[in-house]
Every structure is written in C-alpha cells, then in structure tokens.
C-alpha cells in the first residue's frame, strides 16, 4: 500500500469522507430501531448531524482544577483512532493493505475505550471516575474474548493481513469467531445489556459527565465511528468476494446496517446488567467458547 492509497483510504473511502456520514447514519438507525421497538417515534433522519452541529456551536463552561489540554486531547485521539480503524477495513476488493494490519486495527479499535477511561479520570468527576472504572473492568473482560476470537480467525487463515481474512472461505471456526465478535460488540459500543460505563439515570453520562460543547461533539462522533468500525469489521468478515467496487461497497453498507439492526434489537430487548453480572458473563460464559475456538485452530494447524 503506497502513501497515496493509504491517504485515499483514510480520507475518502472507507475513511473520513464516508465514515463520518455513515457514523451519523448508523447512530440514527440504532436510535430509530430501538424507538420503533419501544413504540416511540424516534429521532428524525438528520438528528445525529443536527446534534453534532449544535454541540459544535456551544461553548464549554470553565472547569476549575481540570486540565483543559487533556480534556480536549482525549476526544480528538478517540476520533482519529476510530477513523483510522474504519480506514483500515478492506471494503473494496484488492484495496491493498500490509502484513499485520489486523493488529493495528485491533489497537485502533481499543484506543477510543482507553481514551474514554482516561477522560473519565481526567475530568475529576465522581460519576466520570465510576464510569471509567466500569469501562476498565468491562474492557478486561470482553477484550480477552474479542482478541481470542479475532486471533482464532487469523490463525485459521495463517495471516494477520485483513485482506486475507476478508477473502477467506467460511468455515465452522470462522463462524464461531464472528459470533464471538458479535457477542463482544454490545460491550464495545456501550449498548444494553452492557451500557454500564455510560449508564444514564444512574451515573449521568459516566466518563462524559463533565464534557460539553465541541468536545462532547467529538465524543459523539467517535462513538459513531466506533459503530462503523465495529459493525464494518463484522461486515468485511461476512461479505462475499465480488470484483465490482461499487457492489462491494453496497454489500458492506447493507451488512453493516443489518449488524446495527441486530445490535439494536438486542439493546431494545434487554435491560442493563450489573457490573458483576457483565464481567461474569464474559469470563464464565463466553471465554470457554473463545478458548475452544483458538485451541481448535491450533490443533487444526499442527495436525500431521
């Protein structure tokens, strides 16, 4: 992948130019789907965009005892890492890539969570600290399963290159890995039943409690980009290989939307779990399957 391709992927497709409107669209799809399942009207189509613009126009009130630089840096870092993660997704056929880009993608996907934890503690708010502690506890629980699932898929393909993963033939192990990723996505995207870190009506907005104005707008955007990256990862793993670029992009968007709807259904159907139940779920119920998946992959790989 040369510099020009890398820039085009980061800035145009599937990077910022595509990912930012897609983030607003996915946020709208999620909110609207949950609303309709709860017999509510839900937001109008442009609402996430309006929210973003409105927040950009507001001023942040002065906060004593808080480092302004850190408070501004965390959301920007979260947005750039989430946008970078979307840019790495191998949406178009033969779009390039490099050996080990899967590891970079995993790191970029994790960075917004780490930024959020740091932002909660930086804000010196009691609610922010509680939210960050919850996010950290949840992070060490679901990330083990998430990483094991992706590593098992990568090991079955003998490659850490995303393009190789996107063009793999479906097998039982890969399906198991994709299901494990899907199980981890609600926790990664902070939706029910794993919406503890930003539990509204309980700890206000968790790590975001002290945020307002353009900084909050950046957090909202980072959250939307996380949606695109998370659901896009599933979409690229599931999508069949096609030669036409426009068809590949269309299939990517449709599959990502289906994943969003699936997650919205889960969010509407479940209530928030307590932190001990959430951690127990990942450590007890899903870790076994993830270990089974990776051990099967290792066995298959070293079979005579």
């Amino acid at each position, binding site marked *: 992948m040369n510099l020009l391709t890398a820039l085009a992927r980061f800035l145009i497709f599937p990077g910022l130019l595509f990912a930012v409107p897609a983030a607003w669209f996915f946020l709208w799809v999620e909110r609207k789907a949950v609303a*309709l399942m709860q*017999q509510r009207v839900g937001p109008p189509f442009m609402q996430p965009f309006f929210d973003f613009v409105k927040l950009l126009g507001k001023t942040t009130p002065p906060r004593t005892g808080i480092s302004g630089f850190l408070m501004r840096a965390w959301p920007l870092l979260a947005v750039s890492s989430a946008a970078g993660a979307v840019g790495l997704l191998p949406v178009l056929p033969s779009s390039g890539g490099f050996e080990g880009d899967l590891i970079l993608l995993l790191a970029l996907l994790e960075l917004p969570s780490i930024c959020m934890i740091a932002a909660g503690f930086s804000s010196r708010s009691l609610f922010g600290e509680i939210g960050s502690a919850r996010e950290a506890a949840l992070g060490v629980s679901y990330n083990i399963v998430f990483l094991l699932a992706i590593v098992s898929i990568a090991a079955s393909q003998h490659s850490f290159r995303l393009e190789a993963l996107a063009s793999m033939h479906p097998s039982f192990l890969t399906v198991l890995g994709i299901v494990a990723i899907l199980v981890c996505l609600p926790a990664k995207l902070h939706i029910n039943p794993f919406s503890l870190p930003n539990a509204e009506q309980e700890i206000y907005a968790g790590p975001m409690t002290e945020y307002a104005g353009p900084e909050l707008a950046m957090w909202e955007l980072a959250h939307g980009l996380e949606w695109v990256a998370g659901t896009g990862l599933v979409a690229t793993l599931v999508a069949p290989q096609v030669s036409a670029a426009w068809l590949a992009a269309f299939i990517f968007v449709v599959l990502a939307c289906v994943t969003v709807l699936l997650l919205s259904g889960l969010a509407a*159907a479940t209530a928030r779990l307590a932190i001990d139940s959430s951690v127990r779920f990942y450590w007890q119920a899903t870790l076994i399957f993830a270990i089974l998946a990776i051990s099967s992959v290792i066995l298959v790989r070293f079979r005579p």
Partner: protein
Amino acid sequence: MNILTMMWQNLRRGYQTLLFPARPAVTRRFRGLVQFDPALCTGCAVCRFRCTSRAIEFKAGKGEFTWSYNPGQCTFCGRCVEGCAEHALKEGRAKHALSQQEDTPPVYLAQGELRKSYTVARRPPMPKPSAPSPAKTAGADACATAGLEAGATPATGGAQ
C-alpha cells in the same frame, strides 16, 4: 421469547407517541380540582381535617364560615371528597391545573394565586326525622314540630 414477540408487535403497530398539538385524554378515574357547592355545605369542616396537604382552610365566623381551597397545594388525594357527608365536594373532571384537556393550562406566578374562597352563611342543622311511635308524649310531638319549623328557616335564607 416473550420480549421478542412484544418487540415484533410494536414494530407492526407503529409508534404510539402523540405528536403536538394532540394530547392524551385523562383517564376515567382522573381526579381533578375539587369543586365546592356552597348550597350543600353545612360547615362541618371535616374536609379541612382530612386534608393532609393543608390545601383546604376553614374559618368559622359569626353566623357564617369561610371555606377556601388552594389548588397549588392540593395533592388530589380525594380524601376530602370521600369524607364529605353532604356531597358538597366533588372531583373535577376536566378543569384541572395539570390537565392537558384545557387549551391553555393556568399559569400562576405567585403562591396562592389559584386559591378560591367561599363565604357561606351558616344554617342550623337539619332536624332528624322523628320516627312515629305509639308511645309518643304530647311534649315530644311539640318538640318535633318546633324542629321542623326551625328547619324551614334556612331553606329560605339558603347559602350565599
């Protein structure tokens, strides 16, 4: 799987949210502002004693009494209406400070602005109808007649 069925039905039914300016109708057992009928009130002040939020005030005067009600303080528990033996109090249906049936809900800026006061002329209590008994004395008959005559007096005066 009950929740999935419910969600599917919700999706099929569509949203139930009323869009502005449509407003939901009040329920059948809705308790509104307390309505006072001065013609029926005997001034026993039971409503004042039953009112835990002190929305009802009662001042006894010479030959009259003042009954006042402050809707801003009322919790609409309905205990005053329950306790009124003369049925002088009843619960309003549509006229409610928080009711959305009114086009413009009342806006008040000062405490007690919605208070309503009635000054009612006190009337003597209605006599109990005496049961006819064969062992009645002439004196008892005379008392009953006097009572009936006395009872007729406030009927002409009435409550103001």
